């Protein structure tokens, strides 16, 4: 996984200004947002622009079975092998709500400081699409399971990305819904193949208020959400596998004026693309408006090859989803310690308090603890959490060495993580585990080897030949020489061998 945010607008400003050059019809969009504000408003005589970004994030719930049927959930399975009669919308089949999906949504809602609705409702959202077998999606439009939450996220700013700025985005709601199937288009043969394995997988749609103003903020917010979901285990949230998909609502306006017409950039599946898509869309809208054009309320897609957003043809025209209550699912009632009826079967109810008590430490809490406990820099705490397994490795190493954690963190981040990045490996795949790193750092700490020798040993360990650091030190004779006579002899020998220079 990448650092919190990569790509796009590093120098995010509150106000966007007109760019020097016009857009070259998307030819060089990658440059967008790198240096916004080249032309100051005062100089150009144009009022500054303010961008408003809201997000809808679809997170696939990590559960054994789908939200309304008993079919298994699995990312890699032969097409149409995980399809129940309900998933294929056979007439007469009915939805049965999966308790695990409800718990995942409650957990996520609590982690995002939402109020959990003790009663929520399901609705049908109608549209015809080949990968939506019933002709409607069951979702929670009127009364979602969780509302009014908050997500804090941190941006790294400044020349060396060393300054941390904490921001907030309000969570409007979290709603439970079904995922659709997948359509695979073969344009050459004008055929569409439908895979219903994904149809009916549980989703949490997290709706974020338009509290962000650039791609970097959007990406940082989603990254934090992703970490939270992964910590909770409510979603694996792997974007590359489509478990976390982002729709971005973008508009621009002049400060003091009402919000502009917004566009929706749909189905963004990486953080890098999210930042780029949002920044591109902001810039496109500014230029469109400055050239006297208007913004259409439309759905666009991000073309990662071209680096620009393009209108989606099959989403043209306004859809009326003809929402209607889902008559086959009674209201979803949740309980807390106070409202829990006596003598009720625990398996029949979801208890909010019970889930609250069992929430794991969230990433923000873990970061604070790391900074306080080990005295490391806040940005290092971010790096530790951003890499799956890195925090655990760091803490293991600290436990096994006498070295100051402040020094350990340098080895873990610059050396170990640096290596991993270079070879595109995850922490789990690392040939150097916490034990051997701890051994190595102990040798360094006890003065057995020098810092540069330690780096040499690490290079050797990297080959994964199963040798211990001590073995390598011995083989390569990398120990610091403690014996005065031996040192004298070496010095003598060097001097004798270099008479000329002397």
């Amino acid at each position: 996984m990448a650092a919190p945010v990569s790509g796009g607008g590093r120098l995010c400003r509150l106000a966007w200004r007109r760019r020097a050059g016009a857009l070259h019809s998307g030819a060089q969009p990658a440059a967008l947002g790198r240096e916004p504000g080249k032309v100051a408003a005062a100089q150009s005589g144009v009022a500054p622009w303010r961008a408003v970004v809201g997000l809808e994030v679809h997170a696939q719930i990590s559960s054994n079975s789908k939200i309304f049927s008993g079919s298994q959930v699995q990312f890699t399975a032969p097409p149409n092998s995980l399809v129940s009669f309900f998933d294929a919308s056979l007439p007469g089949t009915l939805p049965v709500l999966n308790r695990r999906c409800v718990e995942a949504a409650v957990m996520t809602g609590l982690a995002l400081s939402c109020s959990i609705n003790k009663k929520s409702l399901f609705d049908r959202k109608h549209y015809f699409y080949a990968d939506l077998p019933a002709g409607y999606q069951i979702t929670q439009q009127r009364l979602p399971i969780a509302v009014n939450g908050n997500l804090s996220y941190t941006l790294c700013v400044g020349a060396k990305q060393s300054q941390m700025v904490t921001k907030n985005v309000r969570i409007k709601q979290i709603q439970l819904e079904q995922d659709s199937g997948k359509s695979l288009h073969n344009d050459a043969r004008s055929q569409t193949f439908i895979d219903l394995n994904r149809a009916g997988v549980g989703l949490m749609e997290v709706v974020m208020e338009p509290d962000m103003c650039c791609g970097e903020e959007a990406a940082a917010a989603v990254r934090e959400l992703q970490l939270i979901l992964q910590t909770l285990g409510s979603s694996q949230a792997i974007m590359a596998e489509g478990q976390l998909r982002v729709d971005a609502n973008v508009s621009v306006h002049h400060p003091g004026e009402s919000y502009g017409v917004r566009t929706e950039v749909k189905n963004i599946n990486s953080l890098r693309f999210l930042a780029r898509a949002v920044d591109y869309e902001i810039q496109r809208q500014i230029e469109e408006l400055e050239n006297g054009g208007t913004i259409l309320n439309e759905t666009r897609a991000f073309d990662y090859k071209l680096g620009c957003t393009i209108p989606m043809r099959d989403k043209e025209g306004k859809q009326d989803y003809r929402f209607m209550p889902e008559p086959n699912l009674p209201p979803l009632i949740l309980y807390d310690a106070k409202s829990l009826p006596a003598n009720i079967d625990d398996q029949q109810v979801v208890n909010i308090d019970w889930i609250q008590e069992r929430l794991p430490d969230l990433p923000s809490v873990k970061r604070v603890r790391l900074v306080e406990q080990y005295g490391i820099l806040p940005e290092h705490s971010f790096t530790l959490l951003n890499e799956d397994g890195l925090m655990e490795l760091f803490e293991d190493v600290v436990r096994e060495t006498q070295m100051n954690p402040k020094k350990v963190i340098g080895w873990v981040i610059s050396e170990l993580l640096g290596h991993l990045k270079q070879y595109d490996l995850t922490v789990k795949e690392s040939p150097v585990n916490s034990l051997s790193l701890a051994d190595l750092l102990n040798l360094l700490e006890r003065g057995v080897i020098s810092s540069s020798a330690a780096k040499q040993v690490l290079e050797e360990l990297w080959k994964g030949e199963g040798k211990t650091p001590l073995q390598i030190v011995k083989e390569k004779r990398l120990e610091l020489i403690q014996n005065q006579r031996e040192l004298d002899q070496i010095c003598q020998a060097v001097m004798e061998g270099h008479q000329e220079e002397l």
Partner: protein
Amino acid sequence: MLRAALREVSTALKEGQVSPTELCQRCLSLIKATKCLNAYITVTEDTALRQAEESEKRYRRGQSLGDLDGIPVAVKDNFSTTGIETTCASNMLKGYIPPYNATVVQKLLDQGAVLIGKTNLDEFAMGSGSTDGIFGPVRNPWSYSKQYREKCGQNSHLENEDSSWLITGGSSGGSAAAVSSFTCFAALGSDTGGSTRNPAAHCGVVGLKPTYGLVSRHGLIPLVNSMDVPGILTRCVDDAATVLGVLAGHDPKDSTTVQDPFNPFKLPSVIDVGKLCIGIPKEYHIPGLSSETLKVWSKAADLFENAGARVIEVSLPHTCYSIVCYHVLCAAEVASNMARFDGLEYGHRSNMDKSTESMYAATRREGFNDVVRGRILSGNYFLLKQNYEKYFIKAQKVRRLIANDFVNVFSSGVDVLLTPTTLRDAVPYVEFIKEDNRTRSAQDDIFTQAANMSGLPAASIPTALSEKGLPIGLQFVGRAFQELQLLTVAKWFEKQAKFPILQLQEMLDHADALSHQKISLSS
């Protein structure tokens, strides 16, 4: 034997007076003899005989599964049946063979019942005549009864009768005709606005619509999910109670079924209605009600009064809004429920291949009849963002008021309501089709749909013959989940009413003669 009630034939099976196979064969040949009724879409002869054979083995081993073991039953063709075509009388599902059984079908089979066939209906159960399905209209067995023939002064033979035969009512007309013509001992219907009770009344059989949430809808191809209930058609009230005992109860596959355990009951044989309060809703006394039916209704009220029951006039003030409100909610859910029929996963698919959208459009145009398409169109209109408040929300509010009307009446001390089931006796087909499906449904569901709007249990009980010699049914509406009380009252009433048995011998003899003729011709 075939005219017996389920309970009697069940006893006969247990005592070995008849074997399940023999019973099944007799029903099958009667189905053939009454083929002109068009009650069945699919006759499952082979599987029925196999099931009968299994049942016979169980009886021989002394391991009968209960009252339904070996009993031939029919199921309306909108219940999903494994391996048996389930059409909803629509081109859309012609040839569709479901891979699973509806819960109610499975429960019948688990009790050893013999599934003898799938019965005819209005397309997707949308109608009140059983006249609007792709397999043609169902003919009311009473069209060929001695009682009707005598009154009409028509003793002519079957072939000249195309102008006088009567509709069964609907939409479960096939099931009602099947039970009434003795080709099975019980049948499943579905009841969304009266679809079980209406044909029961016209065909002179008992039609029970249980409380919403008591019987699983899993596998019932929906019309209106919030009102649909599997219905039970039998020849007497006791039988309805027996079948209900098998079908009722929580189903994990239907989240709208109640969790409380259901205890099957047998109705008492000695019944005292003296302590009961029977409500007569004054709003059901409407201009369209035939004078005959009105007379039967008030005579019934007198019966209760004479037996010591308190009979009082009650008011259900929102009754007049009910049918309009029903149509809005029905159309909206129909529009939604029918969205799945796009030709992709199952059912009819048009050859149109210009685009996915044009394929959808052609598939749905070819697959659905005008009635279904009309309801889809209006339903989608009601659900549009700009109309939702004005129609759907308003109709839901009115629905609540209608349900509250019943709550108020029952909480005032009324035990059971007594109303007509239909405005009049069955009309001839040629009369019936002079009005369109919508108009007919509005007239015919007038007394029945309120029970669906409020989820209450209701039963139509055959009461008397009209001047034409046709059945008139009355409806009892009970408190939610009080089927025991409702059916107990109905059983008492059934005993007093002494409704005559359908005399079909003439028709059967005729059919017999015809088949003999054929045999002699071919040999």
